[in-house]
């Protein structure tokens, strides 16, 4: 398969395009993700405060839409944001949404 046919959601990006997890303005956790696969893994690893911070700012859907260019997943995350989940419930919902989408992409390509 030609690499150009692989969706960006399944690619690994250079560090300047990775997602960097913060817990508040300017406070970087040291956790980053350079691909959707890594992003899904890090959701379980990172402090839930960081998930709340980024979800409420719309950072996740922005990165997914602009870097991964995955409008479908971005819309799913945006929908999740409107549900106002917090804490462990948020982590669980976010993880489930991402892993389902990722596995669907893997089966397709």
């Amino acid at each position, binding site marked *: 398969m030609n690499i150009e046919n692989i969706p960006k959601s399944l690619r690994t990006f250079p*560090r*300047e395009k*990775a997602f*960097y997890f*913060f817990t508040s*303005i*300017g*406070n*970087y*956790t*040291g956790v*980053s993700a350079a691909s959707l696969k890594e992003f899904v893994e890090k959701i379980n690893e990172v402090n839930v405060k960081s998930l709340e911070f980024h979800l409420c700012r719309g950072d996740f859907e922005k990165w997914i839409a602009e870097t991964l260019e995955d409008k479908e997943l971005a819309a799913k995350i945006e929908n999740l944001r409107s549900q106002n989940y917090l804490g462990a419930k948020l982590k669980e919902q976010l993880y489930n949404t991402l892993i389902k989408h990722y596995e669907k992409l893997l089966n397709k390509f």
Partner: protein
Amino acid sequence: MKIKNDALTLDATDLKILKALQEDARQTYANIGKRLGIAHSTVYDRLRKMERHGIIKQYTAVVDGEKAGLKSITALMTIYTDPKESERVAEELSKTPKVLEVYASLSEELLIIAKVVAENQEGLHEFIANSVAPMPGVLRIRTSIVTKKFKETPFSISNDADKLHL
């Protein structure tokens, strides 16, 4: 003033000139000379030498950004780094206009401490997320936003000159 191996060693008169200049950098050589009891040509010669040797880095205006209506926020970043990359991180930060000061510090871990200005909190976050966090060797970052400034002064020659009983 002594020059040895191209390095300048200042004497009491040089320090007095610097002290006078730090009080008011716009005063004339004649005025400084008159205050210190030396010829204006001496003041001129010594100042030129101190400029050439980088002791006087620049003549600048100290602007009160708030009064000038320039809205900005100041923050102090503590950047935890991989020791092998620390120097390079500090050098990269130093090239950035938003970063005003950069220091290396060793406590339990090797740290880079940097003072940064941004137009607002969003601009600060964007800068740190897009330009600092991605630097190789940056392990994590703690940022404190300054809410009130109690004192800020550049290095002053005054204290050293006083100690010399000039």
